[in-house]
Every structure is written in C-alpha cells, then in structure tokens.
C-alpha cells in the first residue's frame, strides 16, 4: 500500500506519506523512494502528487507578489523594508520615483520615512540576493489610511477563496476596500471604523477556521449577524446581560 494517510489528515514532520511512484509536492521531501512531511499540516493527494498544506509557516518572497512592508531604514539610494520574510527587502529610489533619482536634491524621507507602511511588488528575488521591490504600479505606494491585520501567510489563499469568492464577498458585505499582501498582511480601509471592525473580525475567523469546510457561508452569516447587532445595539446589550 503506497499511501499511508487519508486526505486532509493532520501530519507532523517526518511522517511517512507515500512510497515509490508518488511525486513530492509542497512541504514534503523524498528519501530512498519514500515521501515524508516537513511541516505540521494537512496531507493532500492529487493524482500522483503528495503535498502538505502547512498550518503555520513564514513568508518566502516570490517574484510578482504584492506585499505590505514596513520601512526600517532609509539609506543613501533607497529604503530597507521589512516584509515579514527571512530576508529584508530593498526598495531603490529609482523604483519609487517616476523620474531619474538625483542623490543631492531628492529627500528620500519625504517619500517614505522609517515606520511607514508601503504596498509594494517584488520584482526580483533568488536565494543569493535579497528581494527587490517596486512601487511604480497601480495601487502601490504608501499607506495613508486603514487598518492592518496580520495572519499566517499560508492562510492567504483561504482569505482570497476560490476565484476570489471569499475576498469578493468580504468587500461586498463590509463595503471596505481590502488589499491583500501575500506576506500575510492585509490592509482594510472602509468608510467607518465599524465597517473595518467587521472585516477584521471576519478575517480573524477565517484564520482560525481555515481548515474547515463551508467557511464562506459561515463568514457571510457572521457579518450579517454582527451588522444586525449594531443596528439594534440597545436590544442586544440587554440580552447579552441575561446570558452572562
């Protein structure tokens, strides 16, 4: 029997998942024809491919990803940005200015200063070089308003949903503008703090219940219920008092 677990079963590092003709997918490795897990997660067998959906991980940069980073240092020719990855990212002045960079005249702190949050895109990265960012594209640049929610990067696909089903629902139900950084940071900006609060709650729920089915419907229900609560605040506070 070449398969040792059922689909979506919890595995730990070192667990033997499959043998021989199977291929390694994410978070697995092969040794002497045997495939083992490298992280805690849920196994999945897709045809001949075995992979593990990690329950906890950290962000590994990928070229083309949109990320939300924090400026940690302003250097002579650009900025050093923390993108929650094992490596600090570089944003060069020429990737932030739409005209040639003049080191004597341009004041980089006027554009981004230490502590600023920026939405950026990764333009270059490999294991020998730190990631390189750009902000010269639509919807990129400094964040001026809204709230940031941080979640485990492995759960980002769940927040987006199949063909964006989850994220579209969130945007529609809360009326907030939501930008997802692949590094696990999510920017929420809404018309009122209340709307933002709903979105934050929904994302927290998604993070907690990422491994369970039928999530989109339950989150929709939760938001609608919360909205109802807000409209009838007085009525509800009495009831919660009773329940305590």
């Amino acid at each position, binding site marked *: 029997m070449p398969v040792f677990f059922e689909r979506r079963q*919890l595995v*730990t*590092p*070192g*667990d*033997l998942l499959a043998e021989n003709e199977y291929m390694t997918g994410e*978070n697995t*490795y092969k*040794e002497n024809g045997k495939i*083992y897990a*490298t*992280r*805690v997660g849920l196994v999945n067998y897709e045809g001949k491919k075995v992979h593990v959906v*990690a*329950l*906890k*991980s*950290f962000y590994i940069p990928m070229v083309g990803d949109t990320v939300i980073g924090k400026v940690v240092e302003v250097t002579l020719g650009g900025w050093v940005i923390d993108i929650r990855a*094992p*490596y*600090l990212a570089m944003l060069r002045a020429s990737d932030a200015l739409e005209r040639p960079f003049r080191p004597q005249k341009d004041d980089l702190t006027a554009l981004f200063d230490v502590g600023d949050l920026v939405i950026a895109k990764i333009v270059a990265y490999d*294991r*020998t070089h730190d990631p390189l960012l750009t902000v010269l594209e639509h919807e990129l640049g400094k964040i001026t308003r809204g709230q940031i929610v941080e979640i*485990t990067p*492995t759960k980002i696909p769940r927040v987006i949903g199949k063909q964006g089903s989850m994220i579209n629902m969130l945007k529609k139900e809360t009326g907030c503008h939501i930008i997802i950084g692949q590094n696990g940071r999510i920017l929420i900006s809404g018309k009122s703090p209340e709307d933002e609060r709903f979105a934050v709650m929904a994302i927290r729920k998604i993070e*907690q*219940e990422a*491994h*369970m089915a039928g999530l989109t419907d339950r989150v929709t229900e939760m938001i609608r219920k919360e909205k109802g609560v807000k409209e009838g605040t007085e009525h509800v506070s009495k*009831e919660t008092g009773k*329940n305590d």
Partner: protein
Amino acid sequence: MSQKKPEKMIDENDIRLDGRKLNEMRPVKIEVGVLGNADGSAYLEQGKNKILAAVYGPKEVHPKHLSLPDRAVLRCRYHMAPFSVEERKSPAPSRREMELSKVIREALEPSIFTEYYPRTAIDLFIEVLQADGGTRCAGMTVASLALADAGIPMRDLVGACAAGKVEGRLVLDLTDLEDKGGEADMPLAYMPNANAVTLLQMDGLLTIEEFEQVVNLALNGCKQVCQIQKEALKAKYITVKEAEAEKEEKEEKEETEED
C-alpha cells in the same frame, strides 16, 4: 528537595526511589505554542524537570559576518534559571551550559532543512526552569517541537532520552540523584522515521554488553518520547477544532434559548 544520598536507590523489588520500574520513564507532559511573541515555542514537564523552549526565525543574521552563503545558521542557547537547582546557580552561562548548547545544536541541526534558507539565522532558546537530571534530553525534545511549531521545514522530529547504570542495574531515564550516585549515564537523541541517532554521549563505565543493552534501552525511551511529541504537536490543532465545535454548540444553544 534537600535530601541526603539514600543508602539504596533500587529496592529488592526492583523499584526505584520515585516508585518507577527499571525500564520506566518519568511521566512526560508537553504543550506546544505557549509563548505569544515567539515564532514557535513549547513547554515540557518530565518528572520534576520543567523546560521552556522558544524559536525565532529564520531571520537576517546579526552580526552579518556570521551568516553562511549556502544555509541557515542554527544558534542555540541552553540556559538554566538561577532557581532551577537547589543551590542558586549563577545566571552567567557556565562551561557546562556552553557545551550543552553546542551538543544540542549539533543534535538538532540534521533534522532541519537549513539549506532552504541561506544567509539567515534560526535562534533557539532552551530555558530550564526546574532541573532534576536528564535536562539535555528533555531540552532537545522540547526544542524540536518548538522548531516544528515555528513552521521550520524538518526531516523529522528529534526525541531524546537517557539510560544508564545504577547500583549495577541498567535503568531508563535517570533522575539527578541516580545520575550522581550511579555508575554510568548515556543520553541519546533519535529521529524515529529516519531511524538515525543524532546524539550519543556517555560518562561512567560500562562493559561492551552493557553498552549495547543501555543503547537499546535508551532507544526504546526515545521512541516513547517521540510518540508523546507527535501527540502534543497534533493536540495543539485538535484543541482548536474542539474549542470551535464547543463554541458552535453553545451558539446553537443560545439561539434556541432566545427563541
């Protein structure tokens, strides 16, 4: 805890001072993900041993010259709290602690895919809060779980256990008293799925036959530890599921009450 060395550590019925059989381990309790600010953490109690482990990283290396171009560096600190032993221990790292930090690092490094993250560092802190013999083994056991909890890709979990010789008898999982009064002590760390030993130390004297028996005894102990490790790691996520199920049940109940 201040007790003089007893005359006999194993009685005529083969029962040890704490009531254990010769090949019996102390009860082990492990909890994973206990620290909010660490990337990964775990807490272990093995008899009177109480140990906390925390992992940070992979992250950029400071100072930079310590980084390696082809893999991550694992930096390990084994430290005993001043109150962990009977006589107050100086909090400064002692010769023994520095040596243990090194052997623990070398025992855990083969279990980690360090080559996946070049130019980074993984910081590992093992804090012994209460010590009663066998803390290096217990330290490795928790540290391995903390690494797994941090989401660091690993070949296998590392479980460790000691065995030795006390009053001419071969015993598993020695306490501080047995270690000090016994003839030999052998800590062993083991990766169960890879079937590989990553640490083997010994002090004292054993014959070749005894050595083999003690290795097998310790290996059995390691396998038990690994089983507990795995369960502890899974328990973290199963409890999440259970809590959710409970919450949903409660909500349903409330709803019916409201009606």
